Protein backbone atom coordinates (compact mmCIF):
# COMPACT_ATOMS: atom_id res chain seq x y z
CA UNK A 1 0.00 0.00 0.00
CA UNK A 2 1.20 3.44 -0.82
CA UNK A 3 2.46 5.29 2.19
CA UNK A 4 0.60 8.42 3.11
CA UNK A 5 3.24 9.73 5.44
CA UNK A 6 4.34 12.54 3.16
CA UNK A 7 0.93 13.73 2.22
CA UNK A 8 -0.49 17.08 2.93
CA UNK A 9 -4.21 16.94 2.69
CA UNK A 10 -6.50 19.88 2.93
CA UNK A 11 -9.80 18.99 4.32
CA UNK A 12 -12.57 21.47 4.09
CA UNK A 13 -13.81 22.44 7.49
CA UNK A 14 -17.29 22.88 6.14
CA UNK A 15 -17.67 19.20 6.03
CA UNK A 16 -20.21 18.17 8.52
CA UNK A 17 -19.42 14.88 10.03
CA UNK A 18 -21.00 12.30 7.78
CA UNK A 19 -20.00 8.93 8.98
CA UNK A 20 -16.22 9.43 8.92
CA UNK A 21 -13.95 12.37 9.55
CA UNK A 22 -11.53 12.43 6.59
CA UNK A 23 -9.03 14.54 8.50
CA UNK A 24 -8.86 12.12 11.40
CA UNK A 25 -8.67 9.09 9.15
CA UNK A 26 -5.82 10.53 7.13
CA UNK A 27 -3.96 11.73 10.20
CA UNK A 28 -4.20 8.29 11.71
CA UNK A 29 -2.75 6.87 8.53
CA UNK A 30 0.29 9.15 8.91
CA UNK A 31 -0.60 11.96 6.54
CA UNK A 32 0.17 15.47 7.50
CA UNK A 33 -3.22 17.00 7.34
CA UNK A 34 -4.22 20.56 7.38
CA UNK A 35 -7.78 21.59 7.72
CA UNK A 36 -8.82 24.74 6.07
CA UNK A 37 -11.97 26.53 5.30
CA UNK A 38 -12.83 27.73 1.84
CA UNK A 39 -13.60 31.04 3.45
CA UNK A 40 -10.00 31.25 4.58
CA UNK A 41 -7.31 31.93 2.16
CA UNK A 42 -6.77 28.50 0.69
CA UNK A 43 -4.04 29.85 -1.48
CA UNK A 44 -1.97 30.83 1.46
CA UNK A 45 -2.02 27.20 2.51
CA UNK A 46 -1.22 25.94 -0.98
CA UNK A 47 1.56 28.42 -1.54
CA UNK A 48 2.96 27.77 1.86
CA UNK A 49 3.91 24.15 1.31
CA UNK A 50 3.94 21.31 -1.12
CA UNK A 51 0.47 19.91 -1.28
CA UNK A 52 0.19 16.38 -2.54
CA UNK A 53 -3.56 16.06 -2.55
CA UNK A 54 -6.65 18.02 -1.75
CA UNK A 55 -9.57 16.37 -0.13
CA UNK A 56 -12.68 18.44 -0.26
CA UNK A 57 -15.44 17.23 1.90
CA UNK A 58 -18.54 18.94 0.66
CA UNK A 59 -21.12 19.84 3.29
CA UNK A 60 -24.38 17.90 3.45
CA UNK A 61 -26.48 20.97 3.24
CA UNK A 62 -24.62 22.14 0.20
CA UNK A 63 -23.73 25.23 2.10
CA UNK A 64 -20.47 25.47 0.24
CA UNK A 65 -21.15 25.72 -3.44
CA UNK A 66 -18.46 24.40 -5.69
CA UNK A 67 -17.99 27.93 -6.95
CA UNK A 68 -16.03 28.61 -3.79
CA UNK A 69 -13.38 26.27 -5.06
CA UNK A 70 -13.40 27.68 -8.53
CA UNK A 71 -10.26 29.78 -8.09
CA UNK A 72 -8.52 26.66 -6.89
CA UNK A 73 -9.09 24.62 -9.94
CA UNK A 74 -8.82 27.46 -12.34
CA UNK A 75 -5.28 28.10 -11.28
CA UNK A 76 -2.75 26.14 -13.34
CA UNK A 77 -0.68 25.42 -10.26
CA UNK A 78 -3.51 23.50 -8.59
CA UNK A 79 -4.33 21.53 -11.69
CA UNK A 80 -1.35 19.35 -10.98
CA UNK A 81 -2.70 18.60 -7.49
CA UNK A 82 -5.04 15.63 -7.41
CA UNK A 83 -8.32 16.26 -5.75
CA UNK A 84 -10.73 13.96 -4.01
CA UNK A 85 -14.27 15.08 -3.46
CA UNK A 86 -16.26 13.53 -0.69
CA UNK A 87 -19.85 14.06 -1.59
CA UNK A 88 -22.96 13.52 0.52
CA UNK A 89 -25.76 11.64 -1.21
CA UNK A 90 -27.91 14.72 -1.23
CA UNK A 91 -25.53 16.73 -3.34
CA UNK A 92 -25.80 16.34 -7.03
CA UNK A 93 -22.64 17.54 -8.65
CA UNK A 94 -22.23 18.76 -12.08
CA UNK A 95 -19.14 16.93 -13.27
CA UNK A 96 -18.28 19.83 -15.55
CA UNK A 97 -17.84 22.06 -12.55
CA UNK A 98 -14.89 20.01 -11.37
CA UNK A 99 -13.45 19.27 -14.79
CA UNK A 100 -10.66 21.74 -14.09
CA UNK A 101 -9.28 19.62 -11.29
CA UNK A 102 -6.52 17.22 -11.96
CA UNK A 103 -7.12 13.53 -11.25
CA UNK A 104 -10.44 14.19 -9.64
CA UNK A 105 -11.93 11.32 -7.85
CA UNK A 106 -15.27 11.27 -6.09
CA UNK A 107 -16.43 9.20 -3.19
CA UNK A 108 -19.62 9.14 -1.20
CA UNK A 109 -19.20 11.03 2.02
CA UNK A 110 -20.10 8.00 4.05
CA UNK A 111 -17.50 5.68 2.48
CA UNK A 112 -15.48 3.51 4.80
CA UNK A 113 -12.02 4.41 5.99
CA UNK A 114 -10.11 1.95 3.84
CA UNK A 115 -11.82 3.20 0.68
CA UNK A 116 -10.90 6.75 1.57
CA UNK A 117 -7.31 5.86 2.28
CA UNK A 118 -7.00 3.78 -0.88
CA UNK A 119 -8.44 6.60 -2.95
CA UNK A 120 -6.09 9.17 -1.49
CA UNK A 121 -3.17 6.79 -1.99
CA UNK A 122 -4.21 6.20 -5.61
CA UNK A 123 -4.52 9.88 -6.17
CA UNK A 124 -1.10 10.62 -4.77
CA UNK A 125 0.39 7.78 -6.78
CA UNK A 126 -1.06 9.41 -9.87
CA UNK A 127 0.33 12.69 -8.66
CA UNK A 128 3.79 11.18 -8.24
CA UNK A 129 3.70 9.66 -11.69
CA UNK A 130 2.60 12.97 -13.12
CA UNK A 131 5.45 14.68 -11.30
CA UNK A 132 7.88 12.06 -12.61
CA UNK A 133 6.61 12.52 -16.14
CA UNK A 134 6.82 16.25 -15.78
CA UNK A 135 10.40 15.98 -14.59
CA UNK A 136 11.24 13.61 -17.43
CA UNK A 137 9.65 15.87 -19.99
CA UNK A 138 11.42 18.87 -18.51
CA UNK A 139 14.77 17.09 -18.55
CA UNK A 140 14.20 15.83 -22.06
CA UNK A 141 13.22 19.28 -23.24
CA UNK A 142 16.28 20.76 -21.59
CA UNK A 143 18.43 18.06 -23.12
CA UNK A 144 16.97 18.62 -26.56
CA UNK A 145 17.39 22.33 -26.20
CA UNK A 146 21.05 21.86 -25.23
CA UNK A 147 21.61 19.46 -28.10
CA UNK A 148 20.02 21.92 -30.48
CA UNK A 149 22.18 24.68 -29.10
CA UNK A 150 25.24 22.50 -29.38
CA UNK A 151 24.16 21.54 -32.87
CA UNK A 152 23.79 25.21 -33.69
CA UNK A 153 27.23 25.82 -32.24
CA UNK A 154 28.70 23.10 -34.41
CA UNK A 155 26.88 24.40 -37.43
CA UNK A 156 28.13 27.89 -36.70
CA UNK A 157 31.66 26.59 -36.26
CA UNK A 158 31.49 24.66 -39.50
CA UNK A 159 30.05 27.77 -41.13
CA UNK A 160 33.06 29.72 -39.90
CA UNK A 161 35.42 27.06 -41.19
CA UNK A 162 33.70 27.12 -44.56
CA UNK A 163 33.96 30.92 -44.57
CA UNK A 164 37.68 30.81 -43.72
CA UNK A 165 38.32 28.14 -46.33
CA UNK A 166 36.56 30.17 -48.99
CA UNK A 167 38.65 33.17 -48.06
CA UNK A 168 41.89 31.19 -48.31
CA UNK A 169 40.85 29.55 -51.57
CA UNK A 170 39.79 32.97 -52.78
CA UNK A 171 43.31 34.27 -52.25
CA UNK A 172 44.94 31.28 -53.99
CA UNK A 173 42.41 31.43 -56.80
CA UNK A 174 42.69 35.17 -57.30
CA UNK A 175 46.48 35.12 -57.49
CA UNK A 176 46.37 32.07 -59.79
CA UNK A 177 43.95 33.88 -62.12
CA UNK A 178 46.40 36.77 -62.35
CA UNK A 179 49.19 34.36 -63.30
CA UNK A 180 46.88 32.58 -65.75
CA UNK A 181 45.91 35.80 -67.45
CA UNK A 182 49.55 36.80 -67.95
CA UNK A 183 49.26 40.12 -66.13
CA UNK A 184 52.28 39.36 -63.95
CA UNK A 185 55.71 39.85 -65.43
CA UNK A 186 57.63 36.56 -65.33
CA UNK A 187 60.53 36.67 -62.91
CA UNK A 188 59.34 39.87 -61.23
CA UNK A 189 59.04 40.39 -57.49
CA UNK A 190 55.31 40.45 -58.07
CA UNK A 191 55.41 36.94 -59.48
CA UNK A 192 57.25 35.72 -56.42
CA UNK A 193 54.69 37.39 -54.17
CA UNK A 194 51.94 35.71 -56.17
CA UNK A 195 53.54 32.29 -55.77
CA UNK A 196 54.20 32.76 -52.07
CA UNK A 197 50.67 33.97 -51.38
CA UNK A 198 49.26 30.96 -53.21
CA UNK A 199 51.47 28.61 -51.20
CA UNK A 200 50.54 30.34 -47.94
CA UNK A 201 46.83 30.14 -48.74
CA UNK A 202 47.05 26.45 -49.63
CA UNK A 203 49.08 25.87 -46.50
CA UNK A 204 46.47 27.60 -44.36
CA UNK A 205 43.60 25.73 -45.99
CA UNK A 206 45.40 22.41 -45.55
CA UNK A 207 45.92 23.03 -41.86
CA UNK A 208 42.32 23.99 -41.46
CA UNK A 209 41.17 20.75 -43.08
CA UNK A 210 43.70 18.67 -41.19
CA UNK A 211 42.42 20.07 -37.95
CA UNK A 212 39.03 18.54 -38.71
CA UNK A 213 39.77 15.46 -40.74
CA UNK A 214 42.70 14.42 -38.62
CA UNK A 215 40.47 14.20 -35.57
CA UNK A 216 39.32 10.81 -34.21
CA UNK A 217 35.72 11.38 -35.16
CA UNK A 218 34.45 13.90 -37.61
CA UNK A 219 31.21 14.21 -35.76
CA UNK A 220 32.93 14.50 -32.43
CA UNK A 221 32.30 17.88 -30.93
CA UNK A 222 35.67 17.66 -29.25
CA UNK A 223 37.22 17.97 -32.68
CA UNK A 224 35.64 21.36 -33.00
CA UNK A 225 36.94 22.36 -29.61
CA UNK A 226 40.37 21.23 -30.65
CA UNK A 227 39.96 23.27 -33.78
CA UNK A 228 39.03 26.36 -31.88
CA UNK A 229 42.22 26.11 -29.84
CA UNK A 230 44.34 25.34 -32.86
CA UNK A 231 47.28 27.63 -33.20
CA UNK A 232 47.99 28.99 -36.64
CA UNK A 233 51.06 27.68 -38.32
CA UNK A 234 51.35 24.52 -36.25
CA UNK A 235 53.62 21.96 -37.82
CA UNK A 236 51.74 19.07 -39.43
CA UNK A 237 54.32 16.37 -40.03
CA UNK A 238 54.41 13.76 -42.73
CA UNK A 239 57.33 11.85 -44.18
CA UNK A 240 58.92 14.15 -46.74
CA UNK A 241 61.40 13.09 -49.38
CA UNK A 242 63.58 16.14 -49.35
CA UNK A 243 65.18 15.51 -52.73
CA UNK A 244 61.86 15.29 -54.47
CA UNK A 245 60.66 18.42 -52.73
CA UNK A 246 63.81 20.28 -53.80
CA UNK A 247 63.32 19.21 -57.42
CA UNK A 248 59.74 20.44 -57.34
CA UNK A 249 60.95 23.82 -56.14
CA UNK A 250 63.65 23.96 -58.83
CA UNK A 251 61.11 23.24 -61.51
CA UNK A 252 58.75 25.83 -60.03
CA UNK A 253 61.45 28.49 -60.19
CA UNK A 254 63.04 27.41 -63.47
CA UNK A 255 61.28 30.10 -65.45
CA UNK A 256 62.46 32.77 -63.06
CA UNK A 257 66.01 31.43 -63.26
CA UNK A 258 65.82 31.64 -67.05
CA UNK A 259 65.01 35.33 -66.89
CA UNK A 260 68.35 35.93 -65.11
CA UNK A 261 70.25 33.30 -67.07
CA UNK A 262 70.85 31.42 -63.88
CA UNK A 263 71.63 27.73 -64.14
CA UNK A 264 69.91 25.61 -61.48
CA UNK A 265 72.07 22.68 -60.35
CA UNK A 266 71.28 19.88 -57.95
CA UNK A 267 73.26 17.44 -55.88
CA UNK A 268 70.71 15.25 -54.23
CA UNK A 269 70.93 12.20 -52.01
CA UNK A 270 67.63 10.46 -52.68
CA UNK A 271 67.65 8.68 -49.34
CA UNK A 272 67.17 11.87 -47.36
CA UNK A 273 63.78 11.88 -45.75
CA UNK A 274 62.50 13.85 -42.78
CA UNK A 275 59.41 13.82 -40.69
CA UNK A 276 58.29 17.36 -41.46
CA UNK A 277 55.56 19.68 -42.65
CA UNK A 278 55.92 19.35 -46.41
CA UNK A 279 54.34 22.69 -47.27
CA UNK A 280 56.38 24.59 -44.73
CA UNK A 281 59.58 22.90 -45.79
CA UNK A 282 58.73 23.76 -49.36
CA UNK A 283 58.33 27.39 -48.33
CA UNK A 284 61.83 27.22 -46.86
CA UNK A 285 63.38 25.87 -50.05
CA UNK A 286 61.37 28.22 -52.29
CA UNK A 287 62.57 31.19 -50.27
CA UNK A 288 66.20 30.15 -50.30
CA UNK A 289 66.32 29.25 -54.00
CA UNK A 290 64.37 32.34 -54.95
CA UNK A 291 66.79 34.52 -52.98
CA UNK A 292 69.76 32.76 -54.58
CA UNK A 293 68.36 33.46 -58.06
CA UNK A 294 67.58 37.04 -57.14
CA UNK A 295 70.79 37.98 -55.34
CA UNK A 296 73.20 35.64 -57.11
CA UNK A 297 75.05 36.90 -60.14
CA UNK A 298 73.22 37.10 -63.46
CA UNK A 299 74.35 34.24 -65.67
CA UNK A 300 75.69 32.33 -62.65
CA UNK A 301 74.45 29.17 -61.01
CA UNK A 302 72.48 28.13 -57.97
CA UNK A 303 73.33 24.80 -56.39
CA UNK A 304 70.88 22.94 -54.20
CA UNK A 305 72.38 20.11 -52.14
CA UNK A 306 70.38 17.60 -50.16
CA UNK A 307 72.38 15.17 -48.07
CA UNK A 308 72.81 13.55 -44.69
CA UNK A 309 75.21 15.13 -42.20
CA UNK A 310 78.22 13.11 -41.07
CA UNK A 311 77.90 12.06 -37.43
CA UNK A 312 80.38 14.00 -35.34
CA UNK A 313 80.37 11.72 -32.33
CA UNK A 314 79.82 8.08 -31.50
CA UNK A 315 77.22 8.79 -28.85
CA UNK A 316 74.91 11.62 -27.86
CA UNK A 317 73.39 14.21 -30.10
CA UNK A 318 76.42 14.29 -32.38
CA UNK A 319 75.78 10.67 -33.28
CA UNK A 320 72.52 11.51 -34.98
CA UNK A 321 72.61 12.29 -38.62
CA UNK A 322 70.68 15.32 -39.78
CA UNK A 323 69.10 16.15 -43.10
CA UNK A 324 71.07 18.97 -44.69
CA UNK A 325 69.71 21.30 -47.32
CA UNK A 326 72.22 23.77 -48.74
CA UNK A 327 71.50 26.48 -51.25
CA UNK A 328 74.54 28.25 -52.72
CA UNK A 329 74.81 30.99 -55.25
CA UNK A 330 77.63 32.70 -57.10
CA UNK A 331 76.73 36.23 -56.15
CA UNK A 332 78.60 38.74 -53.99
CA UNK A 333 77.79 36.75 -50.85
CA UNK A 334 76.75 38.02 -47.44
CA UNK A 335 79.35 40.01 -45.47
CA UNK A 336 80.43 38.14 -42.38
CA UNK A 337 79.04 40.70 -39.94
CA UNK A 338 75.58 40.45 -41.53
CA UNK A 339 75.28 36.67 -41.61
CA UNK A 340 73.22 36.56 -38.41
CA UNK A 341 71.29 39.72 -39.17
CA UNK A 342 69.93 38.49 -42.50
CA UNK A 343 67.50 36.36 -40.49
CA UNK A 344 66.05 39.32 -38.66
CA UNK A 345 62.59 40.44 -39.61
CA UNK A 346 62.66 43.49 -41.82
CA UNK A 347 66.40 43.23 -42.54
CA UNK A 348 67.38 44.47 -45.98
CA UNK A 349 70.79 44.54 -47.62
CA UNK A 350 72.27 48.01 -48.21
CA UNK A 351 72.37 47.51 -51.98
CA UNK A 352 68.93 46.05 -52.18
CA UNK A 353 66.39 47.70 -54.40
CA UNK A 354 63.05 48.40 -52.76
CA UNK A 355 61.29 46.16 -55.24
CA UNK A 356 63.36 43.17 -54.30
CA UNK A 357 61.40 42.11 -51.27
CA UNK A 358 59.96 43.06 -47.93
CA UNK A 359 62.71 41.52 -45.82
CA UNK A 360 60.40 38.92 -44.37
CA UNK A 361 61.51 35.79 -46.16
CA UNK A 362 64.49 34.60 -44.14
CA UNK A 363 62.86 35.40 -40.85
CA UNK A 364 60.00 33.13 -41.82
CA UNK A 365 62.43 30.51 -43.06
CA UNK A 366 64.25 30.42 -39.75
CA UNK A 367 60.96 30.24 -37.85
CA UNK A 368 59.91 27.19 -39.85
CA UNK A 369 63.28 25.50 -39.46
CA UNK A 370 63.23 26.03 -35.70
CA UNK A 371 59.68 24.69 -35.56
CA UNK A 372 61.14 21.51 -37.01
CA UNK A 373 63.83 21.31 -34.36
CA UNK A 374 66.47 22.33 -36.88
CA UNK A 375 68.81 25.24 -37.47
CA UNK A 376 69.87 27.48 -40.31
CA UNK A 377 73.08 29.36 -40.89
CA UNK A 378 74.53 31.54 -43.55
CA UNK A 379 78.15 31.44 -44.62
CA UNK A 380 80.30 31.86 -47.71
CA UNK A 381 79.97 29.41 -50.55
CA UNK A 382 83.06 27.73 -51.94
CA UNK A 383 84.69 30.19 -54.28
CA UNK A 384 82.31 33.08 -53.93
CA UNK A 385 78.69 33.69 -53.17
CA UNK A 386 76.37 32.99 -50.28
CA UNK A 387 75.50 29.61 -48.84
CA UNK A 388 72.53 28.86 -46.63
CA UNK A 389 72.62 25.58 -44.73
CA UNK A 390 69.52 24.14 -43.18
CA UNK A 391 69.83 21.12 -40.91
CA UNK A 392 66.80 19.26 -39.71
CA UNK A 393 66.63 16.20 -37.48
CA UNK A 394 64.92 13.47 -39.48
CA UNK A 395 62.45 12.41 -36.86
CA UNK A 396 61.09 14.15 -33.82
CA UNK A 397 58.22 11.77 -33.34
CA UNK A 398 59.82 9.39 -30.90
CA UNK A 399 61.60 11.88 -28.74
CA UNK A 400 60.09 15.28 -29.16
CA UNK A 401 62.06 16.62 -26.24
CA UNK A 402 65.58 16.01 -27.30
CA UNK A 403 67.43 18.33 -25.02
CA UNK A 404 67.69 18.28 -21.32
CA UNK A 405 68.04 21.31 -19.19
CA UNK A 406 69.65 20.31 -15.95
CA UNK A 407 69.06 22.79 -13.25
CA UNK A 408 70.59 23.48 -9.91
CA UNK A 409 68.74 25.31 -7.28
CA UNK A 410 68.31 29.04 -7.76
CA UNK A 411 65.72 31.64 -8.61
CA UNK A 412 66.46 31.68 -12.36
CA UNK A 413 66.34 27.92 -12.45
CA UNK A 414 62.96 27.76 -10.81
CA UNK A 415 61.66 30.37 -13.22
CA UNK A 416 62.98 28.38 -16.15
CA UNK A 417 61.43 25.17 -14.91
CA UNK A 418 58.11 26.95 -14.74
CA UNK A 419 58.51 28.59 -18.12
CA UNK A 420 59.55 25.39 -19.84
CA UNK A 421 56.87 23.44 -18.07
CA UNK A 422 54.23 25.83 -19.34
CA UNK A 423 55.66 26.71 -22.72
CA UNK A 424 55.31 23.33 -24.39
CA UNK A 425 58.82 23.78 -25.75
CA UNK A 426 59.30 20.84 -28.08
CA UNK A 427 63.04 20.61 -27.77
CA UNK A 428 63.96 20.89 -24.17
CA UNK A 429 62.84 19.56 -20.90
CA UNK A 430 63.91 20.67 -17.50
CA UNK A 431 65.04 18.48 -14.68
CA UNK A 432 66.56 19.03 -11.29
CA UNK A 433 68.51 15.90 -10.38
CA UNK A 434 68.89 15.05 -6.72
CA UNK A 435 72.50 13.95 -6.92
CA UNK A 436 75.39 13.45 -9.29
CA UNK A 437 74.53 9.87 -10.21
CA UNK A 438 71.03 10.94 -11.24
CA UNK A 439 72.57 13.83 -13.13
CA UNK A 440 74.88 11.44 -15.00
CA UNK A 441 71.96 9.17 -15.82
CA UNK A 442 69.88 12.07 -17.10
CA UNK A 443 72.68 13.45 -19.25
CA UNK A 444 73.33 10.04 -20.81
CA UNK A 445 69.66 9.64 -21.73
CA UNK A 446 69.35 12.84 -23.71
CA UNK A 447 70.75 14.30 -26.89
CA UNK A 448 72.19 17.41 -25.33
CA UNK A 449 72.34 18.94 -21.92
CA UNK A 450 72.70 22.38 -20.52
CA UNK A 451 74.02 22.61 -17.01
CA UNK A 452 72.98 25.65 -15.11
CA UNK A 453 74.54 26.31 -11.74
CA UNK A 454 72.62 27.80 -8.87
CA UNK A 455 74.39 31.13 -9.12
CA UNK A 456 73.62 31.50 -12.84
CA UNK A 457 73.11 35.13 -13.66
CA UNK A 458 72.26 34.74 -17.32
CA UNK A 459 68.95 36.38 -17.98
CA UNK A 460 65.98 34.11 -18.43
CA UNK A 461 65.21 35.54 -21.86
CA UNK A 462 68.79 34.90 -23.00
CA UNK A 463 68.60 31.32 -21.87
CA UNK A 464 65.23 30.75 -23.48
CA UNK A 465 66.48 32.30 -26.71
CA UNK A 466 69.35 29.83 -26.63
CA UNK A 467 66.94 27.01 -25.99
CA UNK A 468 65.13 27.91 -29.20
CA UNK A 469 68.17 26.66 -31.10
CA UNK A 470 68.39 22.97 -30.30
CA UNK A 471 71.97 22.52 -31.42
CA UNK A 472 73.11 24.79 -28.62
CA UNK A 473 74.74 22.71 -25.99
CA UNK A 474 76.82 22.99 -22.89
CA UNK A 475 76.07 26.61 -22.35
CA UNK A 476 78.87 28.05 -20.33
CA UNK A 477 76.76 30.19 -18.12
CA UNK A 478 79.76 32.02 -16.80
CA UNK A 479 80.47 33.48 -20.23
CA UNK A 480 76.97 34.08 -21.32
CA UNK A 481 76.09 36.96 -19.11
Amino acid at each position, binding site marked *: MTSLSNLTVIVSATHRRLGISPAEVLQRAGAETRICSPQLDLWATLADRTVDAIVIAVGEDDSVPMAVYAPLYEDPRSKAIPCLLLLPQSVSLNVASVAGFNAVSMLPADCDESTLLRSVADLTAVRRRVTEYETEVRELTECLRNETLRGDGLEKKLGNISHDLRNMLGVAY*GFSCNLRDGVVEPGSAAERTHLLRILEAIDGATHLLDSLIGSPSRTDLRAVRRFSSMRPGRVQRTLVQVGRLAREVLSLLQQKANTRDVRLCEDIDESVGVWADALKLKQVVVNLVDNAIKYGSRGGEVIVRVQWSQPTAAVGKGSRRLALISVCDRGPGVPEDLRERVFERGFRGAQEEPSMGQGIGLDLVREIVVQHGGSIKCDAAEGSGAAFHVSIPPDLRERDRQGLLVLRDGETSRLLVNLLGNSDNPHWQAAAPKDDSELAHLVRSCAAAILIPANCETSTSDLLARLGAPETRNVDTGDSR
Partner: protein
Amino acid sequence: MKPQRHILLVDDHPKGLEFLEFRLQQAGYRTSIAQNGELGLEAMQRDPADAVILDVTMPELNGFQACRELKKLYKDLPVIILTAKNEPADRFWATQCGADEYVTKPADPAVILQKLTTYLG
Protein backbone atom coordinates in the same frame (compact mmCIF):
# COMPACT_ATOMS: atom_id res chain seq x y z
CA MET B 1 43.16 61.42 -71.60
CA LYS B 2 40.68 59.27 -69.72
CA PRO B 3 40.73 60.11 -66.00
CA GLN B 4 41.96 57.31 -63.75
CA ARG B 5 39.04 55.59 -62.10
CA HIS B 6 39.19 55.04 -58.37
CA ILE B 7 38.04 51.80 -56.75
CA LEU B 8 37.60 51.55 -52.98
CA LEU B 9 38.15 48.07 -51.54
CA VAL B 10 36.64 47.47 -48.11
CA ASP B 11 37.76 44.36 -46.25
CA ASP B 12 38.94 43.75 -42.71
CA HIS B 13 41.60 41.40 -44.10
CA PRO B 14 43.08 43.46 -46.92
CA LYS B 15 45.69 40.76 -47.54
CA GLY B 16 42.89 38.70 -49.04
CA LEU B 17 42.34 41.38 -51.66
CA GLU B 18 45.97 41.87 -52.66
CA PHE B 19 45.44 39.89 -55.85
CA LEU B 20 42.51 42.10 -56.81
CA GLU B 21 44.30 45.28 -55.94
CA PHE B 22 47.20 44.16 -58.14
CA ARG B 23 44.84 43.26 -60.97
CA LEU B 24 42.91 46.51 -60.77
CA GLN B 25 46.09 48.55 -60.76
CA GLN B 26 47.34 46.58 -63.76
CA ALA B 27 44.11 47.45 -65.52
CA GLY B 28 44.72 51.14 -64.84
CA TYR B 29 42.51 51.70 -61.85
CA ARG B 30 43.56 53.57 -58.75
CA THR B 31 42.76 51.63 -55.60
CA SER B 32 42.44 52.37 -51.93
CA ILE B 33 41.61 50.15 -49.00
CA ALA B 34 39.46 50.57 -45.90
CA GLN B 35 39.31 47.98 -43.17
CA ASN B 36 35.64 48.14 -42.24
CA GLY B 37 32.38 49.69 -43.34
CA GLU B 38 32.71 52.74 -41.17
CA LEU B 39 36.21 53.49 -42.41
CA GLY B 40 34.90 52.86 -45.93
CA LEU B 41 32.29 55.60 -45.50
CA GLU B 42 34.94 57.96 -44.15
CA ALA B 43 37.22 57.11 -47.06
CA MET B 44 34.42 57.89 -49.51
CA GLN B 45 33.97 61.36 -48.02
CA ARG B 46 37.68 62.03 -48.11
CA ASP B 47 38.40 60.59 -51.52
CA PRO B 48 35.24 59.60 -53.41
CA ALA B 49 35.54 56.39 -55.39
CA ASP B 50 33.90 55.51 -58.68
CA ALA B 51 32.97 52.05 -57.41
CA VAL B 52 33.19 50.16 -54.14
CA ILE B 53 33.99 46.50 -53.55
CA LEU B 54 32.71 45.40 -50.16
CA ASP B 55 33.35 42.37 -48.01
CA VAL B 56 30.44 41.39 -45.76
CA THR B 57 31.90 40.02 -42.54
CA MET B 58 33.61 43.00 -40.96
CA PRO B 59 33.70 44.59 -37.52
CA GLU B 60 31.90 47.85 -36.70
CA LEU B 61 29.77 48.25 -39.82
CA ASN B 62 29.39 45.10 -41.90
CA GLY B 63 29.21 45.04 -45.68
CA PHE B 64 25.42 45.04 -45.89
CA GLN B 65 25.08 47.95 -43.49
CA ALA B 66 27.86 49.83 -45.25
CA CYS B 67 26.21 49.21 -48.62
CA ARG B 68 22.92 50.62 -47.37
CA GLU B 69 24.65 53.73 -46.04
CA LEU B 70 26.66 54.18 -49.22
CA LYS B 71 23.57 53.90 -51.40
CA LYS B 72 21.80 56.51 -49.25
CA LEU B 73 24.65 58.94 -49.78
CA TYR B 74 25.73 58.02 -53.30
CA LYS B 75 22.71 56.68 -55.13
CA ASP B 76 24.47 55.84 -58.39
CA LEU B 77 27.67 54.43 -56.90
CA PRO B 78 28.21 50.87 -58.16
CA VAL B 79 28.70 48.54 -55.19
CA ILE B 80 29.97 45.01 -55.61
CA ILE B 81 29.69 42.66 -52.65
CA LEU B 82 32.62 40.26 -52.63
CA THR B 83 32.19 37.68 -49.93
CA ALA B 84 32.78 34.12 -48.82
CA LYS B 85 29.14 33.96 -47.72
CA ASN B 86 27.11 32.08 -50.27
CA GLU B 87 23.77 31.37 -48.61
CA PRO B 88 20.65 32.44 -50.51
CA ALA B 89 19.78 34.58 -47.49
CA ASP B 90 23.01 36.53 -47.95
CA ARG B 91 22.19 37.22 -51.58
CA PHE B 92 18.74 38.33 -50.47
CA TRP B 93 20.23 40.79 -47.96
CA ALA B 94 22.61 42.06 -50.59
CA THR B 95 19.72 42.95 -52.87
CA GLN B 96 17.86 44.46 -49.93
CA CYS B 97 20.69 46.81 -49.14
CA GLY B 98 20.96 47.91 -52.76
CA ALA B 99 24.13 46.12 -53.88
CA ASP B 100 24.59 46.05 -57.64
CA GLU B 101 26.54 42.80 -57.81
CA TYR B 102 27.14 39.83 -55.56
CA VAL B 103 30.31 37.86 -56.15
CA THR B 104 31.31 34.91 -53.98
CA LYS B 105 34.83 33.87 -53.12
CA PRO B 106 36.83 32.25 -54.62
CA ALA B 107 36.41 35.00 -57.20
CA ASP B 108 38.07 35.44 -60.56
CA PRO B 109 39.54 38.94 -60.73
CA ALA B 110 38.79 38.97 -64.47
CA VAL B 111 35.08 38.61 -63.68
CA ILE B 112 35.23 41.49 -61.23
CA LEU B 113 37.05 43.61 -63.78
CA GLN B 114 34.39 42.79 -66.34
CA LYS B 115 31.64 43.81 -63.95
CA LEU B 116 33.42 47.07 -63.15
CA THR B 117 33.74 47.77 -66.86
CA THR B 118 29.99 47.41 -67.34
CA TYR B 119 29.42 50.08 -64.71
CA LEU B 120 32.32 52.39 -65.39
CA GLY B 121 32.81 51.90 -69.09
